[in-house]
């Protein structure tokens, strides 16, 4: 869905996990951008119809980029910066109550 323009030797790369697969991403990227660049066609399914959705505005207005990040559901992925070891999953419909692994 997206393409990186420049990769150079000095670029700091990180490893994150998306749906169980390891991705190499550049430091400073947003989670939404990194996931779309990795080829994910969609980043969530809706609570009502299960339709596939992907980010629309990339600036925190549309709430289409809701994803599960490090166990916390429904986070706006376009507002979160990638971190080493981050675990990202799509937000599949409605969240559960105890989905958080964090306290």
């Amino acid at each position, binding site marked *: 869905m997206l393409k990186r323009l420049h990769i150079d030797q000095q670029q700091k790369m990180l490893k994150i996990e998306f749906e169980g697969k390891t991705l190499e991403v550049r430091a400073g990227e947003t989670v939404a951008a990194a996931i779309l660049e990795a080829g994910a066609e969609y980043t969530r399914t809706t*609570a009502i119809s299960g339709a596939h959705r992907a980010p629309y505005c990339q600036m925190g207005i549309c709430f289409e980029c809701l994803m599960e990040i490090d166990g*916390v559901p*429904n986070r706006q992925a376009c507002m979160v910066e990638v971190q080493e070891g981050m675990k990202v999953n799509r937000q599949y419909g*409605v*969240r*559960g*109550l*105890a989905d*958080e692994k964090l306290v």
Partner: protein
Amino acid sequence: MRHFDFIVVGAGVIGSAIACGIAGKGYSVAILDGGGNMFRASVGNFGLVWVQGKGQGTPAYAEWCRETSSLYPNYARKLLEETGVDIAYRKPGGLTLCHSEAEYEKRAKIIERLTHESQSGSYDCEMVDREKIQKMIPNLPLGSKVCGGSYSPHDGCLNPLALLKALQIGFFRASGVLFPGTSVSNLCYEKDRFVVTTSQVSYSSTKIILAAGNGITPLAAMLGMRIPVSPQQGQLLVTERVKPCLAMPISGIQQTLEGSFIVGLSNRNVGFNTGMDTTVMKQMAQRVVNAFPLLSRLRLVRGWSALRILSPDGLPIYQQSESCPGAYAVTSHSGVSLAPMHQSHIVDWIVDGIEPSNFQFFSARRFNVKKTAH
């Protein structure tokens, strides 16, 4: 001038239920509704159909609440059949939680008093301890402060917005006519009929029902009725959707069938203010966290605030005008809970003059008595 058998002023949950019931009897009915600028208490409702705790010192009202709860299951079914709208009524019973021994004592006294006053001889609401509550709500661990509460099998909940929509659809299917965005500027009674003046046209009717929420007082005065009401603000907060984990409605915490949790139950007298107050929001959130710590992780997506319509004693007013017979005023802050009663008993009273038992209790004259006592 267009004439109707009945005109109802106000398309909230009270006006719509009454209009729907009367139209269903084959009469020509028009609803005149003030529109989006009005305060619209009906859409600010928490959605509980609650029996427990209601009507202390007023057995007639306690009984009124009990009856509506028993009517609700059939009422909901009928609405679904007749309008296709599911108001999501369910009656798994309901809980009021107590967060301290003092709260528990206070609640126990209320329940004791209501049991004692109960006309039917049984009240069906009991105090339960923490352990028993936890068994009723296995998925959500209780916070340590919760020491017990009161439980009634008569309590339930529904989707109040769906109820309003169902009543509107039912009204249209019974050939009712709605004039939205139409404010009433004058009412008068001449030659056995009522003339209703709005900014655009005038209408006439044989009978008229005022169900105009917080706007009822000046209209009632035009038809010789003194109906005192004042606005009481209620705030609530709504979360993101969550997989089902709370089937039992609790006073102040409820999970809708869509999955959102609704939390709240504030009341403040702040005039006609439908904003939110930060301190109140924090208190509501704290109470939820104290009740069920796991809920603290849920995201609040929106706030809502509306004005209840309160009579001086908080109970309904059902009044017919003496100087203008055929004019009725109906007001209550429990319009959602009482919809079945409004669509049956109140309709029968308005159309055929049949008064339910203890009905004089709800007359507005009870306030006049208090006044002259000074």
